[in-house]
């Protein structure tokens, strides 16, 4: 299983933790009982040897992983956290031998304590890291384990791995949909919130696409598997989120460059401190103690972990809402964004035409106009025709004969022995149908950016149907919110000025750029960038170059497919509401990163001089070090308090 590495690590640290304390508690009793309680558990004479014996397994068996990695670093000149701890504990342990000759104070017991505290800190940190990856782990475990597949006429339950593309599977109410597919039979609503973040259940009928791992709610669905294994929507989301974790955030570069030179510098500083103390005091015991403190207090871990851990919590929170951060850089750039550019079709609008108005020449005869039109349009494959059929929502259609598609103009046919003609003004003129009576209606609709279909029966106009690509329910609210936040909102589209302006007015957008060819969108973004940082919101397929050109590219998923390759942030739900959410999330995550880096730097800047000055006993120093990296991880977990 995927997540076992982490689980194994936590288990490993836990085992080490238990044994380290089992040995270190007696060490502490031997060391301090005489001092605190006045009881000598081990006669003074045998104390050094007993500390060395008890301490050996703590450092060299339980702590072997750290010692091995640390000493290896010295040979390869590749230093890490482990190098500091190894050097600190080995030097401290060695004083146990020097103590035989009464050359120095015996720090060998302290050495075990340092190792044990280090291990304890690592254990707590690994637990907290597990907490930080909670949402991502949930995503990994989201997939269904089993499916009920139709084999011949029998329903067979099989493990998910055995489901192949083209298999028909059955999903009962309340069950998890095993994999991506297309409904072949049945009707139901499906809760897709766990994958897309969309909180409202989605209706599914024959031909609807369903997403694996979502929950079927009320009906039985027969679904033909279209994608399995690594090709599914969920698998793509997981990969996208996981891959994002390793991406770099600019602010981290400084921390990384510090981390890279940090350990060698600390090693040098520790040696210099030791030499300085010897020179100043001549006290070997004290000087060694101070040197060890410097080694073990320095915490490159907190610095290195500050950014990735906050990114992980942030992207996990986002994933839960269908906001997928692909590039860590985007969360830093987001706070500089001044202009948000929206593609029109499919982003602000639904991307498919819908009937908006029906006009009838005879009063209260709209239903009949629709009924007749739908009967003809049922036979056409045109998207506008489909919109009319959908709008009519009829169970029966009247019989049409002599149906003919008049490409680019409309359709014709015979219905109830009357000749029907449906189409644009050009078609009506061509057939000498008088449209003077509806001139005003046509004008009104067209100024509103709508496409009109004139319906004529027996050579006379009986009505007009207006169709338009309607705006999404949330568009107006989202754009209003963004404007209030101080963003300049821009809509870009290939539509003509009139249609574009009509839509812009409906949603209250600041600026419209119309008549833009798809390939010119990225150039328009470039022009806008002269005025400030630009975020582009669009679908990942047609708008890929513009998404790339923008400082932050936000790609809209279409609900069942996500364009993995484009966009710094992907909105799985395809809802515009994801845009303000992504902005809030990015800002909160970046804020947390800054906070973490500040604390990590501040800790080292304060603690190291204190250690050099000799104010901190090595054990205290090690406790401080462990706490500082735990703090960074815990602080990152606090990001969850932010509501997005």
């Amino acid at each position, binding site marked *: 299983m*995927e997540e076992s*590495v*982490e689980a*194994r*690590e936590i288990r490993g640290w836990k085992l080490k933790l238990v044994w380290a304390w089992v040995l270190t508690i007696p060490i502490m009793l031997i060391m301090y009982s005489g001092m605190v309680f006045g009881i000598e558990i081990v006669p003074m004479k045998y104390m050094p040897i007993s500390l060395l014996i008890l301490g050996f397994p703590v450092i060299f068996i339980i702590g072997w*992983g750290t010692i091995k*990695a640390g000493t*290896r670093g010295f040979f390869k000149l*590749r230093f*890490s*956290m*482990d190098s500091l701890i190894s050097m600190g504990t080995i030097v401290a342990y060695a004083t146990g031998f020097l103590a035989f000759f009464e050359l120095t104070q015996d720090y060998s017991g302290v050495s075990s304590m340092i190792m044990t505290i280090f291990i304890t800190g*690592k254990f707590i940190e690994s637990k907290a*890291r597990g907490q*930080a*990856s909670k949402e*991502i782990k949930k995503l990994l475990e989201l997939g269904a384990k089993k499916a009920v597949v139709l084999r011949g006429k029998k329903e067979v339950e099989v493990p998910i791995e055995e489901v192949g593309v083209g298999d028909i599977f059955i999903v009962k109410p309340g069950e998890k949909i095993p994999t991506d597919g297309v409904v072949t039979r049945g009707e139901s609503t499906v809760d897709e919130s766990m994958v897309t973040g969309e909180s409202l259940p989605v209706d599914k009928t024959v031909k609807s696409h369903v997403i694996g791992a979502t929950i079927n709610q009320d009906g039985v669905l027969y679904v033909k598997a279209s994608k399995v294994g690594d090709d599914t929507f969920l698998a793509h989301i997981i*990969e996208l989120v*996981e*891959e994002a*974790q*390793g*991406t*770099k955030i600019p602010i981290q570069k400084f921390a*990384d460059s510090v*981390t*890279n030179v940090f*350990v060698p510098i600390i090693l040098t500083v520790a040696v210099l401190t030791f030499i300085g103390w010897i020179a100043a005091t001549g006290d070997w015991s004290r000087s060694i103690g101070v040197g060890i403190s410097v080694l073990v207090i320095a915490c*490159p*871990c907190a*610095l*290195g*972990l500050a*950014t*990735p*851990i906050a*990114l*992980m919590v942030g992207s996990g929170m986002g994933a839960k809402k269908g906001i997928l951060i692909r590039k860590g850089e985007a969360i830093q750039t987001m706070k500089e964004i001044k202009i948000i550019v929206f593609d029109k079709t499919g982003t602000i609008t639904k991307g498919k035409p819908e009937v908006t108005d029906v006009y009838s020449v005879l009063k209260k005869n709209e239903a009949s106009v629709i009924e007749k039109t739908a009967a003809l349009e049922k036979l056409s494959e045109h998207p506008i025709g489909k919109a009319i059929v959908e709008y009519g929502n009829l169970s029966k259609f009247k019989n049409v004969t002599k149906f003919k598609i008049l490409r680019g103009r409309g359709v014709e046919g015979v219905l109830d022995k009357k000749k029907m003609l449906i189409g644009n003004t050009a078609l009506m003129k061509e057939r000498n149908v008088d449209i003077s009576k509806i001139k005003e209606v046509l004008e009104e609709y067209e100024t509103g950016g709508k496409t009109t279909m004139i319906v004529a029966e027996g050579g006379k106009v009986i009505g007009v149907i207006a169709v338009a690509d309607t705006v999404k329910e949330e568009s107006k609210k989202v754009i209003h919110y963004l404007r209030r936040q101080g963003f300049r909102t821009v809509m870009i589209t290939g539509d003509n000025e009139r249609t574009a302006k009509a839509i812009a007015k409906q949603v209250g957008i600041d600026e419209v750029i119309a008549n833009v060819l798809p390939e010119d969108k990225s150039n328009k973004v470039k022009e806008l960038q002269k005025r400030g940082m630009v975020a582009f919101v669009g679908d990942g397929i047609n708008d890929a170059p513009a998404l790339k050109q923008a400082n932050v590219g936000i790609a809209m998923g279409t609900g069942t497919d996500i364009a993995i390759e484009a966009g710094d942030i992907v909105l799985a739900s395809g809802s515009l509401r994801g845009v303000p959410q992504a902005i809030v999330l990015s800002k909160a995550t970046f804020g947390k990163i800054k906070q973490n880096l500040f604390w990590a730097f501040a800790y080292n800047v304060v603690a190291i001089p204190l250690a050099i000055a000799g104010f901190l006993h090595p054990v205290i120093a090690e406790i401080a070090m462990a706490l500082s*990296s735990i703090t960074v991880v815990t602080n990152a977990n606090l990001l969850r308090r932010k509501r997005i």
Partner: protein
Amino acid sequence: MKKIKLTIEGMHCAACAGIAEKELRKVPGVKEVSVSVTTNKGFVYAEDSVSEESLKKAVAEAGYKVVGVK
């Protein structure tokens, strides 16, 4: 070009991820690397000729272990 996902064990801190990245980048044919200490995952973009073995060796060189390749 291909994309390889490695599951890596033994990285304790972010500096470790950096070391693993550095070693992986040294492998001839490797174009892009990103290793995350938080998820124990490494993503490598490399030419088709790059073998899994060479990547495993690079990670071992850094002092960690590849426990999964996909």
